[in-house]
């Protein structure tokens, strides 16, 4: 199963149309392998981007260099996935018992 160790989900919330345009351009950078959970739509709607670990530094530099505000929504995607899997297994054991 594909793992997502170190991947983060960044949330951008901006009121500037030019930031939205930049985020759309960023999406086109195939080498970064970005996964837009919530696509750049319009100002004041959150844009959520899952960023693979190797792309974190360039993406954060890109955002910061353009003054695009962001927060880290999910610190480590794999940690959440591990928790999710563990919860499923626990529930399954309970169901069986």
């Amino acid at each position, binding site marked *: *199963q*594909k793992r*997502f160790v170190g991947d983060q*989900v960044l*949330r951008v919330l901006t009121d500037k149309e030019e930031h939205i345009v930049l985020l759309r351009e960023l999406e086109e950078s*195939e080498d970064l392998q970005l*996964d*837009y*959970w*919530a*696509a750049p*739509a*319009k100002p004041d*709607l*959150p844009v*959520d981007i*899952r960023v693979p670990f190797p792309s974190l530094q360039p993406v954060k530099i890109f955002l910061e260099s353009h003054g695009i505000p962001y927060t880290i*929504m*999910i610190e480590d*995607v794999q940690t*959440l*996935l591990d*928790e*999710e899997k563990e*919860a*499923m297994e626990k*529930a*399954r054991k*309970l*169901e069986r018992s």
Partner: protein
Amino acid sequence: SSGFDFSTYHTIEEIYSWMDDLVAQHPNLVSKIQIGESYEKRPLYVLKFSTGRTAKTHRPAIWIDTGIHSREWITQATGVWTANKIATEYGKDASLTAILTSMDIFLEIVTNPDGFAYTHSQNRMWRKTRSINAGSSCKGVDPNRNWDAGFGGPGASNNPCSETYHGPHPFSESETKSIADFILGHGNVMAAISIHSYSQMLMFPYGYKDEPAPDHQELDDLAKEAVDALAAVHGTRYTYGSTMHTIYQADGITIDWTYDNGVKYSYTFELRDTGRYGFLLPASQIIPTAEETWPALTKIMDHVHKHPY
């Protein structure tokens, strides 16, 4: 009574098995029909809730689908809870009982079974179908860009590697074609509700064009009632409006096709996120999410029932 835990996420095998249990427990209300099969040959099952046994023509019906984007696990989980709620509330809830006295409800819980199985086995983040794209190493089509309504417009991608790839032609995916064939073949579907996550929105046509739908005002008024009812449960706030104006241009989407094909009450939900988890909503939020979605759904279904057309 089957011991099924609604507050945890389940695999497709577990959901399909539970569907059989539900049918067995409510044989006079619930049946399971197969409307087609997926690219990887999994059955496309729909639960039919019906109290009518003698009608020569199809009764007016409400279509609901969950999980067309496979990684949106909260939607399949909400579909399971909702199916159980319909089965158990019939005969108790006056509004639902009245609806089912004259209408049928069809609910497809795992609308993208290949994608869903793939999220459990290989890649939790998979969204699309699993079909092969000629000339590309990237698999899958976005089944919510694959409908014949504004197909191929700028609100979709022509790149097979994109998460919003529209596919080679409208209804190239059996997962969408099977629904379209079913709705057209049925001929009496009055409402279509397609459930997604996340963003906390309730939207209606259009997504592929800027102009308001002919029924815009009624759809908008009903959406407001529905989101108010939803917010009354746990205080969750939804925005609402046409897809184009609420979020962005989206071409080839389910509800635009249903609307253009005569299904006046066409809505799409974007269920919960609390702004913290995205597609990885913890299982502890399944029941609250489903609980709050239920009054919004019943508000729409009740309106459809009371406003035949």
